Every structure is written in structure tokens, then in C-alpha cells.
């Protein structure tokens, strides 16, 4: 709804094992071509977006992740 920075998106570490999670994400893409990566990421984003549930958080993440 609102495009202003809401401060809703967490900016500090929220992962107990950051290296494990980061590498799990990267490794899951290993061997996939670009089209397969895009499909995989689309499923992953929808799953995580629904889990997050908060529209303000999702919109802020979309803004922060967008190419600058």
C-alpha cells in the first residue's frame, strides 16, 4: 500500500548460522541454467513472501533489493 520506508524490514542479523544458510541458498542453484534459476527463485520468493506475511516488509525488501 505504502511506498515510503516503513522501517519494517529487519537490517540486523537474524540467522543463527549465517554461513550455513547463505551457502545452502547458493548451493541449491548449482548446476541450474539461467531459466531454471529464475523458476527456482520465483518459487522460493513466493514461499518466503507468504511466510513473512507482512506486506510492508515485503514492499520494503522489494525496494531495497531493486537495482539502484
Amino acid at each position: 500500500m505504502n511506498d515510503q520506508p516503513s522501517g519494517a524490514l529487519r537490517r540486523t542479523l537474524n540467522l543463527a548460522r549465517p554461513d550455513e544458510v547463505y551457502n545452502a541458498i547458493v548451493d541449491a542453484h548449482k548446476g541450474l541454467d539461467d531459466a531454471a534459476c529464475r523458476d527456482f527463485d520465483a518459487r522460493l520468493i513466493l514461499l518466503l513472501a507468504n511466510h513473512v506475511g507482512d506486506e510492508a516488509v515485503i514492499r520494503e525488501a522489494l525496494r531495497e533489493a531493486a537495482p539502484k
Partner: protein
Amino acid sequence: MSSYTYRHYPYRRPAELDGAGTRRPVVIVGAGIAGPTLALALAKRGVPSVLLDEDDTVSIGSRSICQAKHSLEVWDRLGVAAPMVEKGITWEQGELYLHDRPVFRFNLQPEPGHKFPAFVNLQQYYVEEYLVDRCLAEPAVDLRFRHKVVAVTPHADHVALSVETPDGTYGLEAQWLVACDGVRSPVRHALGLPFEGEVFHDQFLIADIRLKGDLPKERRFWFYPPFHPTNSVLLHRQADDVLRVDFQLGRDADAEAERQPEAIDRRLRMMFGPEARWEHEWSSVYTFTCRMMRRFVEGRVIFAGDSAHVVSPFGARGGNAAVADVDNLAWKLALVVAGEAGPALLDTYDSERRAAARENILNSTRSTDFITPKFPAARAFRDAALDLARDFPFARALINSGRLSVPTRQPDSPLDTPDGEADWGRAPGPGQAMLDAPVDGETGWLIDRLGPDFTLLTFGLDGVPPPLPARVTHVGLPLEGVARQRYEARAGTTYLLRPDRYVAARWRTFDAAAIGRAVARAAGKELS
């Protein structure tokens, strides 16, 4: 080709050709869905109208087939819903398929307790036939076939028309002209008014066929079915064992080749198998646009239905929006013609129905973008939602094969009184359509109890005869049952409903002074 027998309604030589006629309060151009509905609604309010149509029969082709609950409620008050329900196919459920497997089912009206179902599928020619028959039986509707408007000249206090007939051209003056003359609106063109929006390039094929057998009474939508693996297919059942099959063909299809009966038969054989036999009813290769006019009221010319706004077919938001337009317009125009309200009341038709058109266009555009993704990432997300839908219920809500027509919201209208109390939940508030419910111990329907103009709905106030302003009908309901639930009623809860069945105001206690102010406001008495 069609099993429907088109009647040709008689042309009659107009009196104006043999001497000047009088200025008419309302002239309506176009006897499709919107025009006759408006003429009948005005007649019910004592306003006579002239209804002009350039040909002499009903819709060629089945065209707009999904008649929504809110349209049926409007037509019911005009006496034409019963034959539509009788003739049409009642449906409320749908099923969505991915490849060769069902993914999920949906029910558009999951709870009982409404006089009308979510949808009745009925070919547009039947809808128009019933409306025309009713118009021909109504003395206050002067329906003229083969009367074509060829010139429109707006003046400060009237609109002058030139109308062409087989016997020559005559002049006709109207206090108000309502253009219900479709997406190519000759009236809009005559006035040089813009019709802006988005053009979509994907092509679709409608094949309406008569197919014997056990036909589904539900909406079915396939993404990537084995019988049409690159695109989507939509299936609807209509009256007379007619099926509507709508194939997405893509941008690059050869429309001329696709519309050949042999090409259509090839697609149908893939879908229904080599044993199936059918006859062709009607077919059409189409693309579509989403457009709307900048204003729906231009001086004394009013636009309604497709002439004012047009959407893609996904969601059944064309014909049903047209009915909602004229339901919004009829009572306002009647008050203005009667001198009980100023022309400013018609500005609220413009603002409320433009808000509705924007909502319809937004929904229609989103459905279209889902069905025909415009860029590779859009397709990836679309396919991701489809992939996830079988195992993850949340993803089913993302799948958009058409958000089917429900009454639009018309927020912040100057006719409505904002809520004073804050303790309302999901009950319909100002700017939202009222909800039907069983009443009188489940023997009747709330929509049948509404007055011809405004209705004051009270809960738990039996025995208190409230003094009410003119044009307000009181419906007192006990504090029980489905109605109490749908309106979140407590003792004293009061709703003011407009003639078009939208909520104008609501209160937790009966307050005669507040009701009087809200009625005056809803009737346009506070507009400048």
C-alpha cells in the same frame, strides 16, 4: 449456424416524421444490455424514455454469458430475472487445472441464504430478448428499431439528435441523452470524446458449440492442458447444451486461419476426443483493450456500459458493470428529471461509476497479465504460483484466471455518511453493496422487502413506528438469524440503503435527526 432463432422486431414510422415532436426527458441510444435495463428502471420510477436501436434484433452471438448475482437482483426488480434463471445455467463453483490434473476447486457463494446464485450463464441474445419483451410491454418505454443516430448536437438545456430511419431522417430533442451504444459508441465519436487505455495483443478464440453429453455446470480453467499445451483454455456451459470454449492463441496466431471451421474442429477434437460430435453455434477470434472515458457525464450526455468503459472478458465485468452503471444512474436521473435534485446528483454517477470502472479495469488487467505474462520474469512467477498451488494452499489465492464480478466499492461518495462509530467488522459499510439474507423466518428475502427508493433497515426495534422522511421505506427485522449476522446487528442497529442497494449510512442507535440528515445527503440535497 446458431440454434437461436433471431426475431426481427417491427420498425414503426415515428410521429416526428409527420410533424415536430415534443422534447423528451430521456432518450437512450442502444438496446443492448444497458439501454433496456435503464429504460425499464426509469419506467418503474415514472420517467418515460425513448430507446433507439440501429438494427432490429438482439445480440448476434452469445457474447456476454455470465450474469452475476448483482445483475440478477437488478433485473428481478424489473421483472425479468425469473426467466433468466429458468433458462440459464446456475453455477457457483469452478475448478482450475494445471497440465492434466485438477489443482483446486472454488465456490463463489460458499454460504447459503441468498435469493440469487453467484452466476447464471445465459447467452446475451436471451438476456436481450427478455429485456426487449419487457420493454415492448411497458407503455413508458418507446422502443424504436432501425432508428440510427447520425448527429448529436449538445445545447445548454437539451441535446438535439438527428435520427435516420427507413422512411427518412428526423430530429429529436432530449433533456438528457444516455449513450448505451457499446464499445464503438457512435455518440462518443460524434462528440469527439477520447477513450483511452491499454491495448492487449494476445489473441483468443471463442468457440461456442452444442455438445451432447454430461456437461459440467461449473467454470473450468486450464493452464497448459495436454489438448492445448502452450496456452490456457476456459470452459463455460450455457443454456441449450451450448458450451463456451475460449482458447488462448497467443500473440502470433493467424486470426484468419484460426477462425476457419476446420481449424476450430481440430482444436475441439484435441480437447473432446475423436468420438465427440458437436455443432457450431458461434465463434470469434478476438483481442481486447481496457479503456475508459475521462468523464461519464458530459453536459447533458451520459455514458453507461461499454460506451464508457471496456475490460477484458476475464471476470465477467463487462455486461455486469453495465447493469450496475444504469442501476446507479436510474434513480438519480429520475430525481433530476422530477426536479427533486439538481444536476449535481448526476456528477455522483460519474464519480462513483468511474471508481467502479477503475476497480474493474485493475482486476481485469491483473487477470490478463496473469493469463498472458508480458515478460519472462512475469511468466516465471506465474508458473511458480501454479507449481506451488497443489501442495501449498496459499498459492491458490495467487492464481488469477479472472476475479469474478462482485459489486464494486464506491468509497468516499459525497452521498454517503461516513461511520460515526468504529465498532464495525466485515458488515457492508457506506460505499458498499448491501447483502441479501433470508427474512420472515426464512420464508422471504431481504431484497424483496426493500422499498422502491430508500430503505431504512432496523434491527430489534419492533413496535416503534419511526417518523420517516418521504421516499423512505422502513424494514424492521428481529435481532436474530442470518440477517443479524451479516449486518453485525445489535438492538437499535440501523442501516440506510440507497435505491441502488448500496449502504448510504449506518448507526448503532436509532437517531431520527441523523437519519433525516443522511437521507437528505443521499438524495443529493447537500450537493452544490
